[in-house]
């Protein structure tokens, strides 16, 4: 294809067309900007499913507006025939393949993320060992805030090859697990019922969800896992603190002795 043939793909662009393109881009950016500020504000006044639904609208609205703007602008610039489209896409593909591979891959993964929803704003996800709440899904990266209030940007590119752990998957249910390590000499059923009551009497607990206690005998004693759901995923750390504090207090009153782990055993009993 020589230069003349290539230029023939494009329409004649006059000032009116340029203004129209400018207005469409400005309107799309303004719409996206407004939706990215108003929807989180609205979500902050909501809780549970309603909050997560409003937050999930943000990336969806952006993609819809983006597609709408492209569909509007492309026919203004080129003659949208099959031949022309193949020529343009071929040239674009060449440029992307050499220079912008990762960037474009992230953008495409971002579009896939909107469609497949492996994470939504408000979800608690873990990627490569980093755990936090999804605050914003951008074009290229997802922004999460860790429990220590650190913002981490994760490119959507990770979606292709990494495991994405989503703790609540778009819903308000997020299971919390609290560990108790007890000396082996005790009545296991009594402890199990007590721990269930500890969760049941927590103001944070979501009563609509199950409460489960799992015991596992180890060489050094008994390991109990108390599993329950907080009313709101954002309360998970306060909930776990409440369960730990009241659980320890109730177990002491029972009375049950806590396991005295050696440093070697303590190293084995990690959270993962």
């Amino acid at each position, binding site marked *: 294809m020589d230069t003349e043939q290539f230029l023939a793909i494009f329409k004649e662009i006059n000032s009116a067309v340029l203004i129209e393109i400018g207005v469409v881009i400005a309107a799309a950016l303004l719409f996206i900007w407004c939706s990215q500020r108003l929807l989180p504000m*609205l979500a902050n*006044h909501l809780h549970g499913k309603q909050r997560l639904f409003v937050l999930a609208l943000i990336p969806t609205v952006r993609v819809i507006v983006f597609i709408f703007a492209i569909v509007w602008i492309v026919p203004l610039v080129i003659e949208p025939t099959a031949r022309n489209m193949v020529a343009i896409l071929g040239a674009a593909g060449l440029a992307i393949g050499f220079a912008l591979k990762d960037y474009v891959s992230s953008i495409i993964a971002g579009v896939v993320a909107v469609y497949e929803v492996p994470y939504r704003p408000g979800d608690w996800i873990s990627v490569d060992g980093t755990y936090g709440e999804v605050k914003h899904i951008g074009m290229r990266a997802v922004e999460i805030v860790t429990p220590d209030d650190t913002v981490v940007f994760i490119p959507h590119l990770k979606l292709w090859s990494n495991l994405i752990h989503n703790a609540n998957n778009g819903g308000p249910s997020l299971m919390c697990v609290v560990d108790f390590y007890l000396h082996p000499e005790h009545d296991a059923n009594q402890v199990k019922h007590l721990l269930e009551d500890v969760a049941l009497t927590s103001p944070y607990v979501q*009563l609509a969800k199950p409460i489960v206690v799992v015991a596992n005998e180890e060489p050094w004693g008994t390991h109990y896992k108390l599993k329950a759901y907080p009313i709101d995923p954002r309360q998970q750390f306060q909930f776990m603190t409440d369960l730990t504090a009241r659980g320890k207090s*109730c177990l002491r009153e029972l009375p049950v002795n806590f396991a005295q782990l050696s440093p070697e055993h303590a190293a084995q009993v990690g959270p993962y």
Partner: protein
Amino acid sequence: MAESNHWQLIPLDDFERPSAPASTLVQKALIRLHSLIGSDADEDATPEDQDFPHYREFDLAPAVAAVDDAWQELNKTPCVRFVVSPPFSGTGAILREWAEQQGYQQLQVPNVEQLESADTDAWWQAQKCERWLLDEFSSFWLRTTSHMQFMRSLLPRLLRGELGEGVVVVDSWTFAFLQRAWPLSLPHCYCFAAATPELLRQVCIEGSDKRLRKLAAKARGNVGVALALWALERDSERQAPQIPREADDGTAFILYALLLHHGLRGEHLQWVLPMLAPDQLDVQLLRLQQNAVIELDDEGVWRITVYAYIDVRDFLAARGYWLDGF
């Protein structure tokens, strides 16, 4: 009186809440949107100073007669009957009146030692009788591990008939919690049927059928709440209390605890909400009191006000709380 009595005691499973007309739903959505946008226009109002009318001034006799009618039809009296009482419905007062007429003895609630040690026997032996009424089933215990043991010990004894023939009045919020806490569903549960326009007229609320249907739906079929809402409607100078804009998780914990236990003293609130520091709790309580959402009665018990009840329920529902069935 029998022809014109619209009170009905029905099995709990038969309860149907009156459906709200579309206009009420739209109005409710607009109010919610208004609160989300965040208008502070109501801040000039000082609900604390408002003299709200007394809401429970209705004649108990027809309701007592309805209890008699419902239970006279039973071939065999079950050992224990549960009457589920939505807040402010007046069910406790009605059942107390009925028990007095029928010669049922009102049981004293267990003391702290009996609750802590789950000693149901010591509590029962001290006041053993053939026929009894336990009308404070929601308020004598606290949502703590030790008191849960007492409840788990008491409920099977009630159902086995070990405590003779009795009637238990339980708040709807407590009932919902117990359904979750105790795997066996309670038999012989009753409640008063939802308010109809005819019943609202019987308790001296005036208005067209349409208006009364709307009122009944807004009050969720609760006569006491309907009386309070009607009193507010009649007086344009009074405004319904609103949940403070600063309401947070702590506020929700307090409101839920007050509903679960039919009101609580300050020190008992601290027991069931140990994660709230005493000063935080005080600030929350005073803020809610200033907004007339809760009130402190003469016995030092914090209670939700009847005028705020529907708002409080909506607030807890929006936060995903485990709600009562009414």
